[in-house]
C-alpha cells in the first residue's frame, strides 16, 4: 500500500471534569501518514499540545489491537467510527481524505458518566458481571476437563458471544442507552454451555436486575447496537436473553 499525507481538522469534545461543562474545540492534525492509526493521529496532535505546554486530549486506549475494550469514542456520530466490525484503535487513516473535518466525542449514556474529555466511567459493566456473570466454581474443585463434552456447535456459538470486549459501544449507539447486547452476550455464552446450566435462572435474573438498577435504558429492538458492535455480537443473543429471562421468571414462579 502506498502511503499519503493527510491534513485534517478535528472538532474534539473537551470537558475538564465530570461536572464541568464541555465544548467542542478545534485542532489541526497535519502531515498524518495514511498508514497511521486513528489513535496515532491523536497522539501526534497530543504531542504537539504537550510541547506547547497545553493539556493533551484525554482518551483511553491500551492494547491497540481491538481486544482489551479500553478505547472507544464517537467519531463523526458513530461509536468506533465509520467502519463496521472494528474498534477505534483498529481504525486507520487511510479511510479518511485529505481536508476532512472529523468530530470526536465520548460515548454518551446516563450509566457512563464522563470523567474527562473522551474518557467515560464504564464500571457499571463490571457491576453487572459481579451480580451474576460467572459460573460459581472454586479453584481446585473442577472435574477433568474432557469429562464435560460440549457440542462443537454450542461451543462455537458460546465463543461468538464470549468475544464481547466490554467496550460499551452498544450502549453508546442505542437511543435508549440500553446494555442489552452486552448482558445478552454474557448470558448467552454461559447458557450455551453445560457448565453454565446449574445457575442458569438465577444468573439471568440477577444480571438483568442489576442492569435496570444502574440506569441503563430498555431495549426497543432498534438494532443500532449490533450495527456498531466491533465484535459483531449478534442481536439474536438478545432474543436468547429474553427467552432465558422469561423462562427463569416462569420457573421461579412455579417454585414459589
Amino acid at each position, binding site marked *: 500500500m502506498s502511503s499519503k499525507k493527510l491534513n485534517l481538522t478535528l472538532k474534539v469534545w473537551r470537558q475538564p471534569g465530570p461536572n464541568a461543562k464541555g465544548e467542542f474545540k478545534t485542532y489541526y492534525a497535519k502531515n498524518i501518514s495514511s498508514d497511521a492509526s486513528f489513535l496515532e493521529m491523536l497522539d501526534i496532535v497530543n504531542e504537539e499540545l504537550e510541547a506547547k505546554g497545553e493539556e493533551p486530549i*484525554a482518551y483511553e486506549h*491500551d492494547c*491497540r489491537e481491538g481486544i482489551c475494550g479500553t478505547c472507544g469514542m464517537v467519531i463523526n456520530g458513530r461509536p468506533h467510527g465509520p467502519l463496521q466490525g472494528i474498534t477505534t484503535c483498529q481504525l486507520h487513516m487511510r479511510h479518511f481524505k485529505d481536508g476532512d473535518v472529523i468530530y470526536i466525542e465520548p460515548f454518551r449514556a446516563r450509566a457512563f458518566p464522563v470523567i474527562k474529555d473522551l474518557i467515560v466511567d464504564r464500571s457499571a459493566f463490571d457491576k453487572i458481571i459481579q451480580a451474576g456473570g460467572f459460573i460459581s466454581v472454586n479453584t481446585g474443585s473442577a472435574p*477433568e476437563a474432557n469429562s464435560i463434552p460440549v457440542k462443537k456447535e454450542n461451543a462455537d456459538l458460546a465463543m461468538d458471544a464470549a468475544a464481547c470486549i466490554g467496550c460499551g459501544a452498544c450502549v453508546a449507539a442505542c437511543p435508549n442507552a440500553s446494555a442489552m447486547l452486552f448482558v445478552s452476550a454474557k448470558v448467552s455464552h454461559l447458557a450455551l454451555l453445560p457448565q453454565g446450566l446449574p445457575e442458569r435462572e438465577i444468573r439471568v435474573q440477577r444480571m438483568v436486575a442489576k442492569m435496570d438498577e444502574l440506569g441503563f435504558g430498555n431495549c426497543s429492538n432498534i438494532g443500532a447496537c449490533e450495527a456498531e458492535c466491533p465484535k459483531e455480537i449478534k442481536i439474536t443473543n438478545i432474543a436468547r436473553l429474553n427467552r432465558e429471562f422469561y423462562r427463569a421468571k416462569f420457573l421461579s414462579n412455579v417454585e414459589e
Partner: protein
Amino acid sequence: MALESKIPAGPIQDKWTNHKFNLKLVSPANKRKYDIIVVGTGLAGSSAAASLAELGYNVIVLTFHDSPRRAHSIAAQGGINAAKNYPNDGDSIYRLFYDTLKGGDYRAREANVYRLAEVSNNIIDQCVAQGVPFAREYGGLLDNRSFGGAQLSRTFYARGQTGQQLLLGAYSALSRQVGLGRVKLYTRREMLGLVVIDGMARGVVARNLVTGELERFAGHAVVLATGGYSRVFYLSTNAMNCNATAIWRAHKKGAFFGNPCFTQIHPTSLPLHHEQQSKLTLMSESLRNDGRVWVPKQKGDKRHPNDIPEDERDYYLERMYPSYGNLTPRDIASRAAKRMCDEGYGVGETGQAVYLDFSDAIKRLGKKVIEERYGNLFQMYEMITGDNPYEVPMKIYPAPHYTMGGLWVDYNLMSTIPGLFVIGEANFSDHGANRLGASALMQGLADGYFILPYTIGDYLASHKFIPVKTDHEEFIKEENAQKDLIKRLISINGKRTVDDLHRELGKIMWDYVGMSRNAEGLTKAIQMIGDLREEFWRNVKVPGNDADLNQTLERAGRVADFMELGELMARDALHRNESCGGHFREEYQTEDGEAKRDDENFAYVAAWEFKALGEWVLHKEPLVFEYVKPSTRSYK
C-alpha cells in the same frame, strides 16, 4: 544476604507434593484476619485474588485499568500449554517439563519448571469449569494445536483469543468474589510505592488516577502481578500502558531483580511501516503451524511475492532446522530473520521483513479451515496493512514481546523482601533465557490458582505481625516521597515530551540491548542511558497538574523508571559473557552463528541488589541440573 531458593529436597516428581504437605496452614477461622494486597488483575493477579478470597482471606485488589478485564493478558492470542496428552502423541508432565527447560536454554530452576508442568493440567480443568470456550472437536472434546519448540500438540486455544477467554474466566471468578464482598476492588489506582515495616512488606501507596490523590493500603502481605517490561523498548507488542513501575520501585526498596537482560524478541510481529507508529502488532506464533517462512533466494528481489517461483524461494527455517522447521523456538526464529535481513534478503519497502506464507496450507486444508483457525488474525493483519493474507503472504519481523527477567523469587514465589510475593510475568521464575509459546498463560495461572494460595499461607502462619495502620510513619514517609517525585516531574517544565524521550530510550535499547549484543555496544548504551536520564530530569515537559486525571504525568513516572531499568538490563547483558536463549552476545557464537552457552561460568541466576542509581551488587543463585543434563540446544 545469601539467596535461598527454598527448593524442597526429594525426587523431582515429589517435591511439590511434599512441600505442600510441609507448608504451615492458616485455619479457616483465622484467614479472615489477614489482609492481602494484590496489585494487578491480569491472569496472575485475577486468579490469585479470586483463589485467596475463596479461601477466606480479605483481599484488596488494585489495578491502573478502569476494569480488571482490560489487563494486558487479554491480548494473548495463541494458546496455553498443558500436558494432557489428549492427542495421544506421547506427551507427559515430564516431557512438558523437559521441553520448557530446554526451550529456556537451561537457565531456569528444574524444580520450578517441573511444578509448572505438574499443575498445567489442573489449569485446563479449572478454566473449562469456569466456562472458557476452548476450541473443540466434533465429538465435543477439546482440540489441541502445536506451538514453537515442541514436536507435539499440547496447546489449548480459543480461536485467536485465548488470553481474552482465560482472562475473562479469571475475571469472572474475581468478580464473583467482589460481588460477595470478599474482595475490595480499586480500579484506576496506580501503585507507586511499597511500604516496608520492620523488614516486611506491609502496604502500598497508590495514586488515584482520577482525582490525583495518593492513597495508602495496609495489609499482611503484598502480591505484585504487574506484568512485564518490554515497553522499555518503546516499540513492542505489549499494550501501551504496560510498565515496570511497581516492580522497579519494589526493587529499589530491596527486592532483587533476576536476569533483567533476558528479554524475548518475538519472530512474528508486523514490521514497522511508518515513522509515526506507536506499537508493533503481534501475529500469533500459532500461525507458524500452517504458515511457511521464506525470503527470495536472490538478494534485493523486488518482484511481487506471488511472482517468485517456488524454486527461487528460500524456506530458510525448514532448510536450517529440518526437524522443527517453521516451529523452531522464538529466539532462534527471530535471529534467523534478522540474519536474513542483515544479509540483504529482506523484503518490503524497508528490507526489514520476511514472508509468512499460507498458500500451501490453504491449498491443503481449504480456506475455510484456515479462516476458522486464524480468521481474526488475518482480519487484524488486513486492517493494519491493507493487504489480504489469504492472497498475499504476510510480511513479518521480530519485535520485543516478553520479559523472562523480573523480580527474583524463591520457590514460594516470595521476593527478597519478606511478605512481598511476585507472580506472573513480573517475576523471573520459570522461563530461563527464553520462553516457549503458550507457556506464559500457563505460568500466570499456575502461580495465581495453584501455587501462591498455598505458599502465602505458610508465610502468614509462620510470622508474627505487629498491627499496622495507614497512619504508620512509614506510610507517611512513602507518601511524601511519592508526592515529591510527582511535584518534581511537573515542575521541570523543560522542552521535550515524555514520548520523545521514551522513543530515544527505546532506540538505544533496540540498537544495543536488543536481539544481538556486544560488549562495546552495551558499554556505550550504559553511558547513553545515563546521559538520557540526566536529560529527562532536566528537560522533560509535563503539562497539567497533579490533582487531576493527568495521563502525561502517568507516562512520565513510568518512563523515569524505564530509564533506570534500561541501564540495569544493559549491565546484566554485559556481565553475562555467554549467549543463551534470547540473550545473544555476538562474541559468543558457534561457527554457524548459533548461541554458545557457557555452563561452567554462567549456569546461575543473576540477582541484582540495588544500592544506588548506577550501583548494583550481583548475587548468584547457582542452577543445579539433576534430571536434565544441559546440552547444546539443537533444533536441527
